[in-house]
């Protein structure tokens, strides 16, 4: 059975650590198969939001629904790619890809490695790989489970510029060929503009900005509309709401459609 991308509905979600509220009353929905980028300064709560959606943290108040079912009861297959690849150093590349699988998974693991272009390295130890290769293995490890939701927690931030572009292309490519909802947390606005259908800005635990990116794929970094959008978001990020830019007045759901063309 082909895996299905899921719809995510977040309703009045709050998260506190002790007396400190990190996320205040967040409500937002992500469509099936949408590629969403969540950006924000460090400490804004963007990673916390991701970890809540991944059920790695408990929700303090509010609801998190996958296809209308509470996430805790949902059977949805959620996988995550982390900033550090988190490969098990004591397992060969192929065994890392097959982690958590039972039965005859070798052929599937080889196929997944092939998708990320690393089949020749299947019998290497992770410690011999470069940063970019490790992230490719981590991507293969996620893909083999055919997730309906793939979370990407700044997976490219530790890579050099060239490798990052390669990985962006690879992730976009794989997302287009497979059917999953993608949730990318990044502090790189350019990356968000390059990859996402929709960009959410989290500021002080609230959604400060929500915008769709309608540029055709594959996107070129030289696309003037994309450059303009990137600058606009960067401005918004750095100067806050006082900036005379057109931004959403309310916190949620007020998406400004950027009309973009190549």
């Amino acid at each position, binding site marked *: 059975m082909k895996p299905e991308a899921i719809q995510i509905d977040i309703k009045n979600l709050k998260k506190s650590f002790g007396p400190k509220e990190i996320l205040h009353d967040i409500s937002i929905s992500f469509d099936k198969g949408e590629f969403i980028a969540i950006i924000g300064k460090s400490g804004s709560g963007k990673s916390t939001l991701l970890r809540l959606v*991944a059920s790695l943290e408990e929700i303090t108040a509010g609801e998190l629904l996958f296809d209308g079912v509470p996430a805790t009861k949902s059977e949805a297959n959620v996988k*995550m790619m982390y900033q550090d690849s*988190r490969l*098990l150093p*004591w397992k060969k590349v192929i065994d890392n890809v097959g982690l958590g*699988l039972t039965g005859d998974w070798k052929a599937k693991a080889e196929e997944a490695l092939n998708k990320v272009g690393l089949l020749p390295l299947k019998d290497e130890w992770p410690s011999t790989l470069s940063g970019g290769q490790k992230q490719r293995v981590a991507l293969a490890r996620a893909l083999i489970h055919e997730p309906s939701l793939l979370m990407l927690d700044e997976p490219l931030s530790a890579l050099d510029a060239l490798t990052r572009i390669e990985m962006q292309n690879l992730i976009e490519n794989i997302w287009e060929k497979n059917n999953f909802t993608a949730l990318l947390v990044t502090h790189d606005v350019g990356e968000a503009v390059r990859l996402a259908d929709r960009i959410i800005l989290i500021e002080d635990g609230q959604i400060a900005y929500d915008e769709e990116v309608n540029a055709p794929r594959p996107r070129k970094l030289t696309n003037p509309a994309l450059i303009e959008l990137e600058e606009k978001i960067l401005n918004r990020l750095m100067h806050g709401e006082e900036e005379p830019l057109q931004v959403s007045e309310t916190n949620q759901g007020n998406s400004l459609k950027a009309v973009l063309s190549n």
Partner: protein
Amino acid sequence: MKLDFRPWVIPVVLVVIWEIIVRLEVISASLFPSPLTIVETGWNLLVNGDLMTHIGVSLWRALTGMLIGGVIGFVLGVLNGLSKKSYIYLDTTIQMIRNIPHLALIPLVIVWIGIGEDAKIFLVALGVLFPIYVNTFHGIRNVDPNLVEMGRMYNLKGWSLFKDVLLPGALPSIFVGLRYALGVMWLTLIIAETIPTNEGLGYLATNAREFMQTDVIILSIIIYALLGKLADLIAQFGENRALKWNASYTK
């Protein structure tokens, strides 16, 4: 594998100097028998079968004690490393017992258990238990929590999480404990074998003392040293095999 002779240069030079000093009669040959005399004594004991019997008995005591103490220490370490509850209940008690020098228990052990094999094995087991416990516990506790979180996300739980993430992550530390425990094992055995007995390397040395056979005393000390080195080599070999994924263990 190419054999490296460099680590053996100093021991060999020392033995040669020793032989020369004895030959020159600088020191008394009855107090410091020459290396050749010791080799001769060793050969004679080997030929009449005594040496192998004694080594065999000592090895049996060492390994049985090691196995019992090691398994208990490992299980306690894993238990307390995984379960907070178990840690709260058990660790204080274990630490209190650990801080008693186990050799100080010899008089009590003789009274309670007697002077037989049990007493010696008990002392060895008690001695090796703690280094294995402490290092297993810390190994499990110090496994990168990020890897554990990743493992859970990738459907590992219970036994598979232990086997694929926790145990391999703790292994470097467990091996440190094992190698330390091997040292404790020999030390304990040497002392424990001075408890009256009529077999084992300790007996060989104690008995020789009665008759001023310094060559036999030194021979048994050398055998302890060799056995200790051998045990460490085996542990190191196991370590290199088990940890070959770790760049700091591959040469």
